[in-house]
């Protein structure tokens, strides 16, 4: 059996939160932003990660690329645990995994031209490459992502949001990475532009054989792109399944609530479907509920839910649900 490109095992990130009024020797409170996330990312596959704002999606992504201290392990396809590498050793792997950010304009240095921005990964990872060759490569990748190469001397503020995101994509692709981590790459864009950018990502994935970790807070965005989808809530996994299974047969009440909020293009269904409103506020990540963290807002919760939920697994072991009462949505939607 071949190894997956990347396998995350029990990744945890916690932040120390200090109150300004705390005395220096008071132990800081811990915020568990990512709490025991595991997944396998096969080569060429796309994993979608979905969850409300603040559920730890970005934190997970930043932990995977070692921008934050984290525990657990992340095994690269050559068997290396990325979490044990020194920063120097890690550099080689950084070229293999590139990130696309949520805010397209903010992630580009305003004082640099587009050419300089896109060339930065090349200057870092291919220091011996000559300036002419580098410029040729930048032009080629600009063309590839749908930018006119003659815009190479322009500055980020002269571009629209969608074009800025294309610049971000070009910067990520110029070193030919294996893994692309997209942290809500379209959340800041207009709907029509969203479709274009997602179309571009789809095309690039097909042509370049990219493996993608695609983060979104909206299920409709990941639907087309993902082979597999993982739903997070308060830093924990709720459900993980192949895309088709998750959309046709969601088993976790949280997934079902998220799905019911997604607009359906068919007006017939759209009119009859019932939106499952979640009651209550999102609990503070500092003080998550005991047992199943979703139980304070779950329509199915009983006293049993105060104990940690068991993991339900389908026969082919690809559909995981962490819930005491997993089940089809039918009984809810009625």
């Amino acid at each position, binding site marked *: 059996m071949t190894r997956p490109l990347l396998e995350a095992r029990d990744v945890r990130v916690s932040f120390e939160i200090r109150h300004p009024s705390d005395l220096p020797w008071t132990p800081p409170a811990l915020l568990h932003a990512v709490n025991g996330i595991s997944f396998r990312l096969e080569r060429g596959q796309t994993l979608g990660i979905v969850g409300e704002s603040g559920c730890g999606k970005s934190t997970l992504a930043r932990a995977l690329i070692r921008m934050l201290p984290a525990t657990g392990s992340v095994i690269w396809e050559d068997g290396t645990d990325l979490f044990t590498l020194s920063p120097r050793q890690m550099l080689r792997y950084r070229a293999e995994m590139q990130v696309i950010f949520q805010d397209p304009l903010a992630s580009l240095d*305003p004082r640099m031209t587009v050419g300089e921005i896109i060339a930065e*990964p090349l200057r*870092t990872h291919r220091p011996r490459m000559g300036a002419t060759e580098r410029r040729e490569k930048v032009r080629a990748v600009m063309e590839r992502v749908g930018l006119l190469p*003659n815009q190479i*001397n322009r*500055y980020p503020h002269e571009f629209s949001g969608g074009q800025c995101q294309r610049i971000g994509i070009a910067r990520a692709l110029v070193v030919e990475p294996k893994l692309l981590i997209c942290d809500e790459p379209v959340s800041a864009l207009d709907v029509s532009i969203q479709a274009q950018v997602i179309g571009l990502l789809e095309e690039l994935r097909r042509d370049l054989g990219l493996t993608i970790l695609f983060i979104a807070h909206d299920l409709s965005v990941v639907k087309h792109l993902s082979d597999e989808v993982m739903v997070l809530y308060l830093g924990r996994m709720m459900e993980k399944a192949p895309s088709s299974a998750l959309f046709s047969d969601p088993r976790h009440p949280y997934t079902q609530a998220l799905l019911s909020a997604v607009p359906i293009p068919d007006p017939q269904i759209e009119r009859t479907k019932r939106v499952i409103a979640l009651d209550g506020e999102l609990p503070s990540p500092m003080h998550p509920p005991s047992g199943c963290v979703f139980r304070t807002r779950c329509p199915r919760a009983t006293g049993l839910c105060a104990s940690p939920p068991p993991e339900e697994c389908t026969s082919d072991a690809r559909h995981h649900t962490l819930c005491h009462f997993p089940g089809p949505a039918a009984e809810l939607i009625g």
Partner: protein
Amino acid sequence: MVIDSQKMQSLAAATAREDIAGRSLWADARRRFLRNKAALFGLLLLVFVVFFALFGNSLARWSNDEIDFAVMGQAAELGGPSLETGHYFGTDDLGRDLFARTVQGTQISLAVGIIGSAIAVVVGTLWGATAGYFGGRIDNLMMRTVDILLAIPYMFVLILLLVMYGRSITMLFAGVGLISWLEMSRIVRGQTLSLKNRDYIEAARAIGVPARTIIRRHILPNLIGVVTVFATLLVPNMILTESFISFLGLGVQEPMTSLGALISEGSGTIAYGTLWQLAFPLLFFVTTLFGFFFVGDGLRDALDPKDR
């Protein structure tokens, strides 16, 4: 209306060939600065003062330490500004030409201001950017050092130094430079802290760009705006500091002089009716200060990111 797609394509192909020049944030700022009347006026004043300092001596008929024995001791009667005697600005009561002395004083004052400000830019920027970018322990250590140095009454120390080691221009430069970077490093640190959390710095870190290169390539260029404005406004402050010290009689040594020393002298002799001894140095002093303040203000408006 039907758009001829063939034509559009050839147009697109034609425009695609030439590289388009970008309009950088600097170009934008320059345009805004040049539209600012007060700033341009300030720039004009500065250009005038700098030309005066650099080339004034070639107009002077007397050198700054020559004594005109014809007016010596009778400055109030014979030493007034006049074209005939060659004393355009008059003389002091020793009979020394005030024009040459004002030129020389302006040189010293500008030099003190610019050198003090330059030291602040180099040391303060590096210090503040390093502290701000690395944060934590390093930041604490570096900024507490600055706090401690700021807590020392520097004027007192500077005066002590000048008294102990004698009045010399090197001492003056060293003293002014020693204190000028402290405030700068604080401002730069604050700005770095806010820059550090920008997405593009995070992007550079994710790419794997080393910390030193991030500071050089991303932090420093984005600091230039703040640093330029602060440095421009620091120059007149340095000039004021030097003038104050000269006013106390501890500045540069005769026959060298500075605007502050000349003003001090002029205000001491005003009772004898030699108004020009105060007026001319004061005029150049005020012109210089106004020039720097106007230009600094203009730069701040031009570089202000809020307008973008």
